[in-house]
């Protein structure tokens, strides 16, 4: 079985990627606009929330994760959980100095 036969039954086409690209461009415009409104500390929170939505679009569609098997999905999840633990524990430390 070659690589194409393995994957072609759920192969996303050109249209889907162009739609994802349009969403990413729109979100870039939104994040630039929102940054001009003064929200104090919330500015960083909103910017990171929008960036995370964009990142999910990239990971699930451009990087094809939505169409991968459960093993790979779990591996990616574990990698991000480790990153979250790493970031979280650093802040437990620095926030209480």
């Amino acid at each position, binding site marked *: 079985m070659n690589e194409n036969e*393995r994957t072609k039954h759920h192969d996303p086409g050109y249209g889907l990627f162009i739609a994802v690209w349009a969403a*990413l461009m729109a979100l870039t415009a939104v994040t630039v606009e929102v940054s001009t409104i003064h929200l104090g500390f919330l*500015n960083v929170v909103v*910017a990171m929330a929008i960036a995370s939505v964009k990142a999910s679009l990239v990971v699930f569609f451009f990087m094809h994760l939505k169409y991968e098997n459960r093993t*790979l999905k779990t591996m990616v999840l574990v990698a991000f959980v480790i990153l979250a633990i790493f970031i979280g524990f*650093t802040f437990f430390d620095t926030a209480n100095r």
Partner: protein
Amino acid sequence: MTEHRDYLGAKMGMWIFLFTEILLFGGLFVLYSVTLGRYPTEFHEASKLLDVTMGTTNTMVLITSSLFAALSVVGLRKGSRKVAKTCIFLTLTLACCFLVIKYFEWSHKIHAGIYPGGGTLTQWEPGKQAFFSLYYTMTGLHGLHVILGMGVFLWVWTRIAVGTCTPEHFVALENAGLYWHLVDLIWIYLFPLYYLIT
């Protein structure tokens, strides 16, 4: 004799490599966040010195280059080497645009003495110096990834041209794409953190 191929293994290997990249940049993002928490006002002011128009343009350029990287895989799978090669060419062109804009941004700052150890920057508060040290380190390391990604795409382009990366066995192109999307992903976080926290 048939050549041994492991499609899923090749892709999983690429992802494992990408995890190490995520942790490499993750460490720098932690350093950024802790320093931002320590010098919020200075980061605000230093961030105003970066050109939002150039940053936004570069974000759009990189996202579009990522689109063409994704389209090149679709093209090759559908059997068209020509579409795949054209899309890779467009990805590489946009990557060059990204680097040229980055070059103008950096050289403008360096001429103004705003670089680690530079005449202007050393006069400023420690918080602003930290901001620019992190800016050069993180966008520099990201830029290095852009250059490496271009090299990877050039290699895959040659493989498609000579016929060793084909509509049946396209994992090399898919993995090059994965690397490129990760570079895009990192920029998606770098952009608001450096340009938009004003």
